[in-house]
């Protein structure tokens, strides 16, 4: 951020200077994020149109009720809440890294970048566990009068409406769009988190090597931060669409 005083009445748009002293890299990042928002928007709107055109949708309280090392305890949305907390917390450490960057405090930037990277890796690990649990899980499903045991995949949804069969309640196959959209969209988001972690690692190394001290500013950290916050923000919408409603 520029520390020089800006005279009042500066003509920002008359050329010869960048409007509002924003660097081209930041402008580019903002436009990229707008573009990426359209990609996610297209995914989520597609999800919405299909979800509200089918009669039944899996109840997230049933689908997402497991927790690592907790056996068969019924803990609806507990794990995803932890994941969300981790991701939001990594955004907080990112803000702190950017703040330390403004103060030109290399040690501080390094500390908070490490924490942000660890947060990202932790989130990805949680997602890997959740995916594995869903895919390898086996749920009794009534298929053509036979009981089969299914996991949740892109082409199988064991969370359909329940019917009475031999005196007990048993699920029937649900709309297969569920798995496709869940894995497709959380996967695309996870890919963004992954690339964010890679970017943050590069930023960490550059900080460690003193590149930003030589340059005289830590703007790269700020740009990486913009991306990281965007990925967090998208998660809020993904969380809303798949876990809360």
């Amino acid at each position, binding site marked *: 951020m520029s520390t020089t005083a800006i005279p009042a009445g500066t003509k920002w748009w008359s*050329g*010869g200077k960048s409007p509002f002293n924003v660097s081209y890299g930041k*402008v580019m990042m903002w436009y990229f994020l707008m573009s990426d928002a359209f990609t996610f*928007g297209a995914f989520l709107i*597609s999800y919405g149109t299909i979800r509200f055109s089918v009669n039944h949708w899996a109840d997230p309280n049933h689908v997402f009720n497991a927790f690592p090392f907790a056996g068969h305890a019924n803990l609806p949305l507990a794990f995803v809440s932890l994941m969300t907390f981790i991701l939001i917390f990594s955004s907080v450490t990112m803000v702190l890294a950017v703040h330390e960057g403004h103060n030109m405090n290399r040690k501080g930037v390094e500390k908070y970048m490490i924490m942000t990277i660890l947060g990202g890796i932790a989130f990805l690990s949680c997602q890997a566990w959740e995916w594995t649990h869903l895919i390898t899980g086996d749920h009794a499903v009534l298929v053509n009068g036979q009981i089969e045991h299914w996991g949740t995949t892109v082409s199988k949804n064991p969370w359909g409406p329940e019917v009475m069969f031999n005196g007990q309640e048993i699920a029937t196959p649900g709309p*297969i*769009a569920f798995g496709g959209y869940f894995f497709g969209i959380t996967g695309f988001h996870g890919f963004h988190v992954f690339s964010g972690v890679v970017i943050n690692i590069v930023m960490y190394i550059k900080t460690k090597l003193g590149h930003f001290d030589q340059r005289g500013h830590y703007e790269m950290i700020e740009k990486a931060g913009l991306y990281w916050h965007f990925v967090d923000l998208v998660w809020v919408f993904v969380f809303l669409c798949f876990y809360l409603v």
Partner: protein
Amino acid sequence: MSTTTLQETAHHTSHGEAHGEQHHHETFITKYVFSQDHKTIAKQFLVTGIIWAIIGGLFSVIFRLQLADPTATYPWLEDLLGHWAQGGKLQPEFYYALVTMHGTILVFFVLTAGLSGTFANFLIPLQIGARDMASPMLNMLSYWFFFLASIIMMSSLFVQTGPASGGWTIYPPLSALGDASAGSKIGMDLWLVSMAMFIVSSLLGGLNYITTILNMRTKGMSMTRMPLTIWALFFTAVLGVLSFPVLLSGAILLLFDRNLGTSFYLSDIVVAGKILPNEGGSAILFQHLFWFLGHPEVYIILLPAMGMSSEILSINSRKPIFGYMAMVGSLFAITILAFLVWAHHMFVTGLNPFLGSVFVLLTLLIAVPSAIKVFNWLTTLWRGNIRFTPAMMFAIGFVSLFISGGLTGIFLGNSALDIHLHDTYFVIAHFHIVMGVASFFGMFAGVYHWYPKMFGRYLNNTLAYIHFWVTIIGAYLIFWPMHYEGLAGMPRRYYDFSNWESFKNFGGLNQFISMIALLVFAVQLLFVFNFFYSIWKGRKVTNQNPWNANTLEWTTPIRPGHGNWPGDIPEVHRWPYDYSKDGKDFIAQDVPVGADESKH
């Protein structure tokens, strides 16, 4: 007099200064292949675009041969295409592949990458007074992603089952099911992967164009002093950056449907007596995603042509452009409306008629900014001191085609009429004239006008005039009759019309159209010859400002190096349209405003 002396400018520190005139050692590889100079990248886009245009054009000639006489056989066709033209007769599957690839190539690879890629790269830094793009590195990557996309798309022509053949709009379920047709197999996957690369390229380019225009204008170049080319390229980039990602989403979901067994677009389908396990998806969803890109895409193609034509019309009429702010405003209006009209491609999909009527209204609203632009072009020409240079001929041709093709858009934008006209040759005629040929005319105008700046030589004028007259007369002769065929209900994409009594009488007309198409294609080869011949053998440019134009690119040396201006970047003192003002033929943008000068 042209301004050969650079203005005394206060030394300002734009970002471009950092990589200004560095005469570091350049090898052949860094100078011509992995170059970061925007001018070289522009030429790379242009040459790649020309190669694609020849391939895409050749495809149309081959399928026009089929339409001219469905019974004829051409032995040389078998030599060229092998089993796709057994016995010298084009096979139906390959006919569809040719139609599909013709559309894909021309829409994306030529008129998007070839047009925007060339002129945004070439003109933005030169006309706003910057040493290069904001990020020359990303700019270079933009070309190489396009190159990668080109290689993948080109390789799909050589696979056993042939390239994608479900139409350039790749609607599922045809595109989603590998068993649906030969072209739905590996060719379709290659198409989707190639387009994903293409979208990355377009994104990298677009981000650069936007930030360069916003951040790197030279001193005095306020937004409202920018040439209209720059405004048009700016809105083009915004359209691309915000609409291509939606196609990316659609393409990713389609790839999943094809390869992972998902059902985003598929529902309750029986193929060859076999019930597929898919359920719950919606093929219409794909159409929404596709056209959310597909309609803005039309303007991504058209806006650069509009911008360049505005510039060339003003320069060669020796008059200021009429209604500069109205021109900018109408570009802006078109950009906004472009995002709000996509469903007019879907009137016959079972769209709610009320929703349809909303889209009719929004679609017809585009006529307003379009008409403003046409009015302003005509009033710019009005009583001008017109110089009929080849660039000017093509710019005038652009206006003519835009009017002719635009008027039929008013028919098609009405959902009631569209029910009859949908998927007929009327649509073919409409979009080829207004978007295809018109944009090509804008592109030709740009090439003829800026060729001296690109290569330091002129194109041959005689060949240029032949090129112009044959192309404009030929384009009207090809596409005008198609309106009548379409009104009579002749559907597009059919392999053979001779089986229908109602279309038999168009046989002669189809033959005529094909003959003209062949002729027009041959004349384009003449242009390609002129283009490459003149790079080495053309008449040399000796005048720094050969067209007596006002914009900054003509203040650079005849062959500008990397960094564009050997000294300081000139400062800008006025808008770019001071022609025939105060008794002076033209006053370049870097000339300070005189004390006794009148306002424009």
